[in-house]
């Protein structure tokens, strides 16, 4: 993942020093940001500055959050925010903002305040992957039942195999010669 220094700068974040050093959001030249974004397709971001980056991206207009999904990698949870870039003259591509949450205590700031669509998406990532989104209300399971333990999409969650063929041999119907029993 290319380190999106130029994009961060273009978004008026200044150097990617400690978070919060950025000036008022969105005052960077919007044109420069747009061309930088059009070039790169991805941007890796530290969890702390995730909300500001997404807020400023939304400030540019033409960006729609269409998906949040997470990948359980050995080194941590890669949560990707996919934005559909409707504005530019070229085809409507996908711009991804990636943030990594560490395995032991996966936490990320919630972006529900920026896009309302993020509500159900974050609940799904929490439900299946177990990444906690802070600063939001109503973070509860969306697909599994409410009192479900564990997060099924994690690699350490093992599926139980269901036997396909009946173990009780005697139950088998009388074998017809062709085309199974009729």
């Amino acid at each position, binding site marked *: 993942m290319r380190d999106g220094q130029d994009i961060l700068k273009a978004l008026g974040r200044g150097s990617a020093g400690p978070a919060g050093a950025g000036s008022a959001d969105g005052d960077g030249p919007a044109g420069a940001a747009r061309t930088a974004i059009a070039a790169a397709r991805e941007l890796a971001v530290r969890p702390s500055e995730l909300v500001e980056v997404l807020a400023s991206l939304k400030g540019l207009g033409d960006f729609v959050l269409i998906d949040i999904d997470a990948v*359980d990698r050995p080194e941590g949870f890669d949560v990707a925010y996919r934005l559909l870039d409707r504005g530019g003259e070229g085809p409507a591509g996908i711009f991804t903002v990636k943030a990594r949450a560490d395995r032991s205590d996966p936490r990320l700031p919630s972006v529900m305040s920026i896009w309302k*669509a993020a509500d*159900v998406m974050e609940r799904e990532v929490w439900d299946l992957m177990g990444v906690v989104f802070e600063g939001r209300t109503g973070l509860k399971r969306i697909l599994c039942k409410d009192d479900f333990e564990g997060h099924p999409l994690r690699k350490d969650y093992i599926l139980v195999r269901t036997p396909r063929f009946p173990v009780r041999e005697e139950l088998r119907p009388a074998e017809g010669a062709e085309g199974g029993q009729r």
Partner: protein
Amino acid sequence: MRDSSIGSADGAAGSVTAVAAEARAADPALDALQTEEYTLNLGPQHPSTHGVYHAKLRLNGESIVGCENVIGYLHRGMEKLAESRTYAQFAPYTARFDYLAGVLNNWGYAMALEKLGGIAVPERAEYIRVIVAELQRIASHLVMLSSMVIDLNAVTGWMYAFTAREGILDLLEAVSGSRMNLNYIVAGGVTEDLPEEFEAKVKRTFEDLHARLDDFDRLVSGNEIFLGRTRGIGVIESGQALEYGMTGPNLRASGVDLDLRKDAPYGIYDKLDFDVPVLRGGDSFDRYHIRLLEIHESVRLVEEAMAGLPQGPVRTKLPKAWKPAAGEVFEQIESARGIQGYHIVSDGSAKPYRMHLRSPSFVNIGVLPELAPGLTIQDFVATLASLDIVLGEIDR
């Protein structure tokens, strides 16, 4: 309140709670009236929830005060299953996501694999993909039209649209062997070539389709009662739609011109000329009407693709134990209900490390809790039908 008779289109949202509040303000005695809200579970077992969708409605009389979506009843854990199947083995499962537009799912998955493994697709296969995909879109839109119409109790209209769909399903069966869950578009092309005299069958089916659609249109679209039930009901502004990440016909009915076949053309959509209908109203009637227009566009697309069909192979065979290079891809396609995205992460083995589906209905339904307050139960049913959700795709 402007006097609106049963037939005339009621422009203002005309929500019932506004009327009740107004009456209460006018007559102080009404205030003493002790009314109590109650919750009503609409679903998961309900005739008009289009699958196992469950809405916890808080009602004041018959108008909705609050709504909460409860989903997950059809969660089969498909994304987890994908991690224990090879790439080719998972292809048939994709048709079970949005089971009304099976082959469109296949296409999204196949395109993601082709981009992941850098597989070339023969020209003829691209044309056949457009033909079969647009036929599937027609069938899917016909289900939407008929299920919306039967939710408003026009049972005859429902029957006409489903009978029209039979012809399309027969075409799909002639091509791929199965009517609903096709496994026809695979990585590298399509499984088999078109059957012979397929062109004549398509022409016959389309004649019958046009006749039935015109009758359906005449029976329902102009009907004042239908207009009274859907015009100005469940209005979604374009800003609200974008805020909720809505895509597909629901978004285009709110005035936003976003169609991947035009904005990010894949396959051979840039070679075909068709236009994308966009309506401004954003109410249930426009969401109904836009699907009717899109069917005519899809018919045009199929005819164009049939005309320009080149000769040649239809598939580049993949090795049985196909192992793409480690990497990650996100491919998106314009499915019948919106943008369907496939995010596949491969670690060099024969099985995907992670497979995630971006489902349009999962996001489109997020707008309901904000839309429902003020509607009556009857309007909620009409709005839910107009959003055209498929629970297989929502719950995965």
